[in-house]
């Protein structure tokens, strides 16, 4: 082949080639699982029909922020804050619950339903890695509802303000609070809904069970609050994730509950709710790990 005047032409071997490149192990496996599940949560790389519900719900969750920004732009008033960051959750709580019901079974039960679990567990991945990857994926997906719209709102408010620097100076503390509250809310909802979804391979049961968890806990909490007095009536608000989250957000923002609301009636110190949220998140996550450690595949 060294001679130039030889006609150029080669036949290449299309046979099997070995792979000699790097093998990146558990951490990489976990990261891939996380990204794959996160994409799956929004139906990316899937047919259009699997994108509609999660993306529509995420849009609904961003709508209050968009409206506020729009109103701010037109009216151009510093003081017209219809939606305070500590109240944002009140507008989107149903969207968050529906998102969990629709997406958690997709994130968690799917591999059990399609019997893909043995493929994961026979690879360079531990069962606990699998669960943590899935938890992280749903948590991140929920941040698109609980954190991203508010962050945009915060930035938008600042930029729309006639005195941006003044706005940032006065309100900069809101940003870490938005981050913290968004992360906490997402953590509780992610771990609770995954715990429920992990109990069954059947998607319909999982969706229904997640909704049932939210609806029934709210009904019970509300009925008990309205029925019993004393410690029982006070503690009833701890039975529903919605009130726990609401109260934790208020605590993070050092704000108070509206008078007349269930939280105001309960009159418990904020750190109790924060502790409840952390405990519930941790216990739920631990239970999911435990379930997957034991599941036979």
């Amino acid at each position, binding site marked *: 082949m060294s001679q130039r005047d030889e006609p150029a032409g080669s036949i290449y071997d299309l046979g099997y080639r070995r792979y000699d490149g790097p093998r990146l192990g558990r951490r990489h496996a976990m990261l891939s699982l996380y990204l794959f599940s996160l994409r799956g949560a929004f139906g990316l790389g899937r047919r259009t029909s699997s994108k509609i519900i999660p993306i529509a719900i995420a849009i609904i969750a961003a709508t209050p922020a968009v409206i506020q920004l729009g109103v701010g732009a037109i009216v151009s008033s510093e003081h017209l804050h219809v939606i305070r960051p500590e109240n944002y959750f009140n507008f989107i709580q149903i969207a968050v619950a529906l998102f969990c019901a629709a997406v958690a079974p997709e994130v968690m039960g799917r591999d059990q339903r399609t019997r893909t679990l043995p493929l994961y567990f026979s690879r360079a991945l531990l069962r606990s890695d699998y669960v943590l990857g899935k938890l992280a994926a749903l948590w991140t997906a929920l941040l698109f509802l609980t954190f991203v719209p508010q962050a945009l709102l915060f930035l938008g408010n600042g930029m729309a303000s006639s005195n941006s620097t003044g706005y940032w100076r006065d309100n900069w503390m809101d940003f870490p609070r938005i981050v913290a509250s968004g992360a906490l809310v997402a953590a509780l909802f992610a771990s609770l809904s995954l715990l429920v979804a992990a109990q069954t391979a059947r998607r*319909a*049961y999982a969706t*229904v069970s997640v909704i049932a968890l939210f609806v*029934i806990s709210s*009904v019970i909490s509300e009925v008990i609050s309205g*029925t*019993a*007095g004393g410690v*029982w009536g006070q503690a009833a608000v701890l039975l529903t994730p919605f009130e726990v989250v609401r109260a934790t957000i208020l605590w993070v923002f050092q704000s108070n509950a509206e008078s007349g609301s269930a939280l105001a009636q309960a009159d418990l110190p904020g750190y109790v709710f924060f502790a409840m949220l952390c405990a519930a998140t941790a216990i739920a996550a631990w239970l999911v790990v435990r379930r997957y450690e034991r599941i036979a595949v």
Partner: protein
Amino acid sequence: MNRAIVELTARQLLGQRRSLLLVVFALIPVGIALLYRFEGQQPNHVQWTANVLGARLIVGTLLPIAAVIFGTAALGSEFEDGTAVYLLSKPLSRSRVVLSKLLVAWLATGALVLASVLVAGAIAIRDIPDQGVLLGFAVAVAAGSLAYCSVFVLLSILTSRALITGLIYVFIWEGLMTALFSGTKVLSIRQYTIGVAKWLTTTSERTFAARLDGPEALALMVVMSILATWLAVRALARWEIGESG
């Protein structure tokens, strides 16, 4: 009815984890009634028992959830698991299969909810005259279970997503639409059940109100049950195996 199918279905419905979950559900009204009894602040026990315990917790939540789970599982799980062929390839009419399945779903739902009503109600109402509230809800719940189950058994033959469809009916249609549009009450088993319960009590309208009159509610309930059962029998008689088997 066929005794072998009845026994089989009873084991199917009662021997599983979801039945245990339902028993826990059924205990919730009892727990709340206990709380009410010892910590309650409401002055009118009959009013609380009828509206909060009866209409809201039991008829509004426990009854439809128990019925949708038992009703769709009785026959639906056979289609889902592929065991239906064992029943349908036997020399017995398909109407018997439907009726046997419905009977067990009804008995399971009815027994569970009835127990919850009677125990929770007896705790909440204390010793004052109860103006027929306990009896009213007991009878209404027994009848309501049948109406719900017949509809859900029908759904389980018509669609493989009967559970979801059933829950949409319960929560969206009965829960939301009926609250917004009063006219939809004629298609709400929850309203039939409350109507029948109210009919059997001697409470005043201010203590406990129903949207449908007693006779009207009962008639609608009977029509609904018979219609759903008849359609279920017809649907199973025409049932064909899916392409997947």
